[in-house]
């Protein structure tokens, strides 16, 4: 059988390529996730783990015990205990901590500028070289009192060079330090601007912020005081990693879920490929059986073929994944510098896992098809042409599907009533599995209906597409998975975003507000604001500048009957119906002493009114009152604010920048909601696109599946296609027929997937979104869904390109003489 196995593998290599690509893509996906997760960990080790790299043990204070550290830093070590420990261990200990001190140059100028000007942080540096975690850039490490090294960032920012002298501390503890070196140190809680030798550090032990958080120890620690905890260095770092791990593990888990989806799709594609390949080779198997191969021999041979494909594809996928992963790390570092990534040692468990999963996927996917192989009777070889297997969809299968559908729908109903995510996921999975099971009945019907739209020209394509219901169903199923999830995500996100927008519109009705206290707004300023690109509408708002109790600065008190022109909520916020109230955007003030419901006195000139505060937000530092109230306060209201509504496509950063310029020139102040919202929207966008990108991998694999099915069907139908050519079909017609077939499959899968996806999104909306945002309304993003359907149709066409070219190459004569 070895000859047969090897020869089959050699002969059918090209036909296995597509199946292999599906496996390669999923395996590479898993491995990339592994490399990046490990990279994040390695990045953490390289930064936060650095102080402990040369240590055997770490001593720190337990987080849950009574606090023994200084009052600034409760979770740190008792200072005298720490000092005693470090004194006892000498060069084998490296204390880790910091102290905040004042810092001045020679001549008394404060070091640095801005808020932290005149201040610095000083940390100890280990005496033993292998416990030092700072890296020297220039100069040397401090060895005696009066010497210090400075972090390169601070040195650059404060223009300090080796040889400079800095006076650190005040009064009795003030010391002149000579900068003897410049260092870099990774960003950890132990990072300081300057580092000094331990005895020097001890000098400030009575400063309020002086602390020792932990001690890294080389060799044995010996007995320690109560309230000290001894860790092995490895364990300590790993424990510190746990916090980060929770995050990266969550992300990795999410990614693994997507990888799982890709794997399921791969199983479908690979299983389908094997079924088709084996169906085509039915006569080979039958002949083998005739000449004396037992079932077991035939089965063994095809299983070994599958295993060979699995091993090769998984190996390739692992290598490609590792390559991609290591290639992505520097890119992530460049794009997101706040997440340090380091090239990790090969993450062996992930690599092996990826390889194993690939092999498993292939074997699982080939299991059923290979079982069908052995069912072939030797007589099949004697029949002139192996009949196309019309596999009837079993009653058992349909019954199971019905059961799953009913249970699933019931679960989804429960989920909506009880707001239960668990029921939702279980119900969704159950319904979807049910749909996949009825696929062989459902999909061909849908194909027929859709095909009817193509008219008589599409009839052949339709007939071909439904010829083998199970095969068509399996092919479309792979795409169905990806499209359903994509649609559900798109719709869910659109609904979520619409809900957020609605909340924003209520809470932040005005996009931007220019407020002027000193002088009224000029009509010229209003014109210029209106002319600013990105401004849809702007109105001036009348009012008067008032003193309001509780606010130390004067406040414009406005009334805005025209607010509806610019407000996102239609101006509802500005319609103050009850006189006697004032609406104030409390969130616009840093520390308002006024609480909602307080009575305040509003004074304009010599008039005043007692008003109750109603908090609303979104129009900046101004109060909104009823027109009557304003009339009560002043006879001559003047415009003191301009309210702006941004147009839909406006670039928030630029618009705010422009308005800021106008406001500054006019001595007015600008409050805006645009930037905050833009940031929130961007996050949502990034999330949506990441999810879509990840699902894209599954969709791509599914499209490979369509190309594969079509390609193999073309081989199978070479004789028929040749006959069609002989009967007068042009090459172009033949190509079109195949393209139509591919499109039918992809469009049906997409339409079905879109419908199910929207349904799932609706359930999700009822279960999750509505609970979080009660006023949320289901929103179906028709344009996006249209793009999905169109993309799928085009991708279907693309999938047909190669098979169609191949089919068209067969000359009529060659096709007819094939056997």
């Amino acid at each position, binding site marked *: 059988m070895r000859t*047969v196995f090897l020869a089959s593998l050699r002969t059918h290599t090209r036909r296995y390529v597509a199946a292999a690509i599906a496996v390669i893509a999923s395996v590479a996906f898993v491995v990339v996730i592994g490399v990046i997760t490990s990279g994040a960990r390695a990045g953490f080790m390289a930064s936060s783990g650095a102080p402990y790299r040369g240590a055997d043990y770490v001593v720190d204070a337990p987080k849950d015990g009574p606090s023994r550290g200084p009052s600034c830093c409760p979770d740190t070590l008792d200072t005298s205990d720490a000092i005693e420990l470090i004194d006892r261990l000498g060069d084998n200990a490296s204390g880790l901590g910091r102290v905040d001190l004042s810092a001045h140059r020679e001549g008394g100028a404060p070091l640095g500028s801005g808020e932290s000007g005149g201040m610095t942080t000083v940390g100890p540096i280990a005496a033993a070289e292998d416990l030092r975690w700072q890296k020297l850039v220039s100069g040397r490490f401090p060895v005696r009192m009066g010497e210090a090294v400075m972090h390169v960032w601070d040195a650059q920012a404060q223009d300090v060079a080796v040889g400079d002298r800095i006076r650190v501390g005040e009064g009795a503890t003030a010391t002149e330090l000579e900068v003897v070196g410049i260092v870099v140190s990774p960003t950890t809680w132990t990072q300081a601007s300057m580092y000094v030798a331990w005895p020097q550090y001890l000098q400030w032990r009575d400063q309020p912020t002086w602390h020792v958080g932990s001690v890294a120890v080389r060799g044995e620690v010996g007995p320690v005081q109560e309230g000290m905890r001894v860790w092995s260095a490895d364990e300590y770092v790993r424990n510190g990693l746990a916090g980060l791990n929770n995050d990266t593990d969550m992300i990795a888990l999410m990614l693994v879920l997507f990888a799982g989806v890709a794997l399921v799709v791969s199983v479908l594609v690979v299983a389908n490929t094997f079924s088709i390949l084996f169906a085509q080779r039915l006569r080979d198997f039958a002949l083998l*059986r005739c000449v004396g191969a037992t079932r077991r021999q035939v089965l063994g041979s095809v299983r070994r073929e599958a295993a060979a494909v699995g091993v090769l594809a998984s190996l390739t996928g692992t290598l490609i994944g590792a390559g991609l992963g290591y290639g992505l790390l520097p890119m992530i570092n460049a794009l997101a510098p706040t997440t340090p990534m380091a090239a990790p040692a090969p993450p062996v468990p992930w690599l092996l896992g990826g390889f194993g999963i690939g092999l498993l996927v292939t074997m699982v996917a080939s299991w059923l098809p290979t079982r069908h192989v052995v069912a072939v009777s030797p007589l099949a070889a*004697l029949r002139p042409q192996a009949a196309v297997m019309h596999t009837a969809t079993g009653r058992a299968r349909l019954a199971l599907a019905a059961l799953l559908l009913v249970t699933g729908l019931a679960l989804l109903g429960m989920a909506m009533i009880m707001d239960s995510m668990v029921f939702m996921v279980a119900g969704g999975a159950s319904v979807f599995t049910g749909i996949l099971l009825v696929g062989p009945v459902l999909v061909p019907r849908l194909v027929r209906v859709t095909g009817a739209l193509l008219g008589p020209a599409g009839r052949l394509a339709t007939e071909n597409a439904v010829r083998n219901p199970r095969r068509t169903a399996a092919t479309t199923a792979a795409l169905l998975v990806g499209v359903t999830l994509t649609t559900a995500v798109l719709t869910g996100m659109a609904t979520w975003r619409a809900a957020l927008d609605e909340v924003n519109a209520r809470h932040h009705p005005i996009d931007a507000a220019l407020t002027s206290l000193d002088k009224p707004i000029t009509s010229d300023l209003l014109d210029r604001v209106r002319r600013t690109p990105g401004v849809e509408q702007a109105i001036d708002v009348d009012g008067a500048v008032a003193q309001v109790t509780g606010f130390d600065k004067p406040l414009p008190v406005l009334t805005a009957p025209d607010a509806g022109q610019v407000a996102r909520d239609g101006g509802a916020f500005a319609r103050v119906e009850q006189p006697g109230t004032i609406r104030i955007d409390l969130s616009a003030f840093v520390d308002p002493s006024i609480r909602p419901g307080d009575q305040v006195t509003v004074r304009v000139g010599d008039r005043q009114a007692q008003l109750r505060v109603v908090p609303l937000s979104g129009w900046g530092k101004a109060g909104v009152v009823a027109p009557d109230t304003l009339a009560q306060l002043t006879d001559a209201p003047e415009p003191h604010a301009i309210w702006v509504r941004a147009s839909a496509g406006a670039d928030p950063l630029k618009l705010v920048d422009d308005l800021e310029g106008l406001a500054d020139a006019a001595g007015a102040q600008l409050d805006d909601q645009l930037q905050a919202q833009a940031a929130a929207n961007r996050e949502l966008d990034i999330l949506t696109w990441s999810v879509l990108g990840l699902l894209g991998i599954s969709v791509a694999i599914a499209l490979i599946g369509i190309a594969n099915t079509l390609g193999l069907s073309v081989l199978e139908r070479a004789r028929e296609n040749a006959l069609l050519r002989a009967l007068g079909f042009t090459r172009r017609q033949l190509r079109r027929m195949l393209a139509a077939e591919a499109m039918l499959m992809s469009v049906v899968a997409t339409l079905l997937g879109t419908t199910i996806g929207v349904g799932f999104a609706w359930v999700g909306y009822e279960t999750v979104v509505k609970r979080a945002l009660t006023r949320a309304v289901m929103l179906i993003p028709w344009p996006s869904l249209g793009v999905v359907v169109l993309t799928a149709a085009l991708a279907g066409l693309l999938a047909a390109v190669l098979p169609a070219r191949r089919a068209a190459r067969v000359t009529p004569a060659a096709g007819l003489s094939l056997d």
Partner: protein
Amino acid sequence: MTTTTRHATQETLAASARGLTKTYGQGDAQVHALRGIDLDLPRGRFTAIMGPSGSGKSTLMHCLAGLDQASGGTVTVAGTDLGSLDDDALTIFRREHIGFVFQSFNLLPMLTALQNIVLPLELGGRRIDHAARQRAHTLADTLGVADRLGHRPAELSGGQQQRVAIARALITQPDLLFADEPTGNLDSTTSAEVLDHLRRSARELGQTIVMVTHERDAAAYADDVVTMQDGRIV
């Protein structure tokens, strides 16, 4: 092979059938392909089974060759009652005792001619040693395809394919060689060559051959002719 019932009289018989019936379908749709066949196939003879389409000759061959289960009656090949064998045992029996030449699609497309010829030996788990190779070459030589052994079926003519198939059928020295319309796809010259090879195999190698054909010309090469009609031997 578990039950080996040998009788003295059967020493001279390669195969025999007794009361063989085969029906397909149920009720009204029932078709009687074989209606009680008694047949003895003597060793070393070239027997042709003739008859028009639908006469049951192919069914008879399938039952004799253990490719199909009879509905009633017994088939004994090389002293073994085929009805007593399960699928695996039957497969191994076929491998060791029966050779086939079909009308078309005789060869596995991915194997070379030589690989196809030695395939039955390989399936039996035998090492393809020098002797086996030698025998394959001798057979190929006799059949006139020695120079085509490295080629794949697609690169062989129809006649060459059939001769490679005969070589493959002969390599195990089977008790019985079945040929199902072996010349159905061939022109008359090539047909004559293939039939001549079959006849020489019977005469010179003592090979028992059963050939199913509907061509009178082909049947003329055989030692005996059995004619069938409506599931009976006439």
